């Protein structure tokens, strides 16, 4: 009896997970198929679920009409640098807030949390003026700075959760062995926290990789543009260039999907560390 239930359960599990897989993968599949269709076939009925003839003209096109490889490089550079800075800054703040309780620490956490509720646009014109005065407009540094700003509060909260899971006795032992507190943090705690830190890093990277609005507003120069801005340019007055758009979507999704596929173990593991506080 129990066994049959188990079998039924397994079958049910496979079916449900299968349906979910189709639901999740189909949109991406459809973008890939669209991108591989010749341009004139994209709009013809009946729809082809598999292109009659695979064509790479859409991919050729996006490299021809835009400096797509440059944008890819820019996005990668900005996203990586900003995510790295976020980690450097928030490992310190997350650690301190996890280990010490002092006057104002609760309010500080609150202040970080409230940033999540603020729509970006409210402060935007002031931010623009600030960037202008600091001479950062049209420089990638403006995006690196603003992406860092956007992520620091939440990543502090996230990392604080991870640090709380690690017993303080570990770094205390290291400090007795002659390490400074910071030395202990980086030599003992950070290595243990690597999965959690990876999860935070990926979170930060993905946010940066996707950001559109500030990238449009702060960057003018063709050679400094990022991928989302370039893709936004496929929306013209006449049409959305679905051929180029689908090809660009596929190319821009690939790095994140690969990153996810490689790192998903760390993500879940890292989050497991921080998920529930004992």
């Amino acid at each position, binding site marked *: 009896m129990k066994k049959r239930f188990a079998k039924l359960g397994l079958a049910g599990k496979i079916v449900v997970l299968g349906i979910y897989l189709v639901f999740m993968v189909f949109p991406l599949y459809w973008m890939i198929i669209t991108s591989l269709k010749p341009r004139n076939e994209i709009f013809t009925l009946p729809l082809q679920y598999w292109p009659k003839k695979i064509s790479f003209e859409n991919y050729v096109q996006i490299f021809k009409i835009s400096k797509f490889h440059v944008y890819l490089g820019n996005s990668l550079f900005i996203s990586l640098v900003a995510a*790295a800075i976020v980690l450097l800054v928030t490992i*310190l703040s997350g650690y301190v807030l996890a280990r010490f309780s002092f006057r104002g620490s609760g309010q500080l956490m609150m202040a970080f949390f409230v940033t999540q509720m603020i729509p970006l646009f409210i402060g935007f014109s002031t931010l623009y003026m600030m960037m202008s005065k600091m001479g950062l407009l049209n420089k990638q540094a403006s995006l690196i700075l603003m992406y860092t700003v956007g992520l620091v509060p939440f990543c502090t909260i996230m990392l604080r959760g991870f640090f709380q899971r690690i017993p303080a006795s570990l770094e205390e032992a290291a400090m007795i062995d002659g390490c400074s507190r910071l030395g202990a943090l980086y030599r003992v705690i950070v290595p243990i926290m690597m999965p959690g830190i990876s999860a935070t890093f990926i979170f930060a990277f993905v946010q940066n990789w996707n950001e559109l609005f500030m990238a449009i507003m702060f960057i003018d120069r063709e050679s400094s543009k990022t991928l989302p801005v370039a893709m936004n*340019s496929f929306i*013209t*007055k006449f*049409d*959305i260039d679905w051929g180029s758009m689908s090809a660009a979507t596929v190319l821009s999704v690939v790095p994140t999907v690969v990153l996810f596929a490689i790192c998903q173990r760390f993500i879940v593991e890292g989050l497991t560390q921080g998920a529930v506080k004992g």
Partner: protein
Amino acid sequence: MKGTKRWLALPVVAALAAGVVSGCSGSSDGGDGKGTVKLKMIESLTSPARTEVIKKMIASFEEANPNIKVELISPPLESADNKISTMLNSKESLDVLEVRDVTVKQFVTNKWIADLTEDTNAWSGYKDLNANSLAMANYIENKPYYIPYGLYQKMLFYRKDWFDEKGLTPPKTWDDLLNAAKTLTDSANNRFGYSFRGGSGADGYIVDLLRDFNGANVNTDDAMFLKSGATIFSTPEAKQGLTLYTNLYKDGSPKDAINWAFAEQVQGFVSGATAMLIQDPDTIDPVKQKLGEGTWATAPMPVGPTGVSHYKVGAAGWGMTSYSKHPKEAWKLIEFLSSPEQNAIFTKTAGVIPIHNSASVDSYFKEGAYKPYIDMANDPEHFVAYKPETDYKGFGEWRKIVQQDGQAVLLGQLSIDDALKKWDAYWMNEKQQGK
């Protein structure tokens, strides 16, 4: 503590380094000290093909003026005007910018763009501009705030092959158009009569239609109002017009069209889903590319019940910021772009009506698809130009309101009477507030 300091230094150094490294690349404005002037120019109605052409024009400008370098900024279309206002509002370095008939009022009110009177006085080419271009250039305060690069005016595109098949002739009136649309609609085969505009930009279509129904009573100098001073929404004719608009959607257009903006409208026509399209001349090129010769043709705009069609000329062009540090060079660039040779290159790509009076332009017009423009211009009794309401303060808000209310009317959520009442009140209020 030694270790502490070293670790602490890291993020600070990294942050500083990022700033310094990228801070070194290129100065943001002005020249590089060798007498070279660097101009910044931004475009608004961006598209990859158009950007290519502008770049080529700039290259020939730089060749002719070796001491001037131009940096072109091409933001994505959707956010372009927003970016331009943001830059202007914070006086970010910018010299030449794309000014549109819908943005010029805002730019002038905020003193963001320069009055070009002195420059145009000294420019020999100014008098060669055609009447419509001059009118659009001087639309605000009767001063030239920008030099148009081209003009827009609507006409009717239709599927000649489908019309012939059913023995129809191109519609002369709005009623004809509705009937033709009904006849040609065959929704089972995904064929519809009319490329309806229900989404962003529907405002122009609705208001123009209501003007046509009000006929000769419209005050063409202040075209939201009648000669009597009442609004164009207050009459029984307006109700007839809006009823026709609703029927056109219900009986002659795809359901999806309630959300259609420019792109979908054109797409619907060129993909063979719709039989008629009312659009600007920049649509000629995509239509030509996608539809075979002989399958389509153009015609003058349909007229209202009393035989009048109201048209407006739209324009966009190049202007100069009021705070440009290099006004002389900036004007040089505008003048260069507005020269007949350069303008000819540009208008061909952008598909707009040229700005000059010249023989070449005339021949350009007589050719096929552009012919309705000549016909309309030669028939001022039936085709009446009006001054658009773009100079009212509430214009931006209005566009959104009428588009949304229009959709609500189509969906039956708002009655025709209530919509007209609301719009009537809006414009009475605008009139009180002044321009």
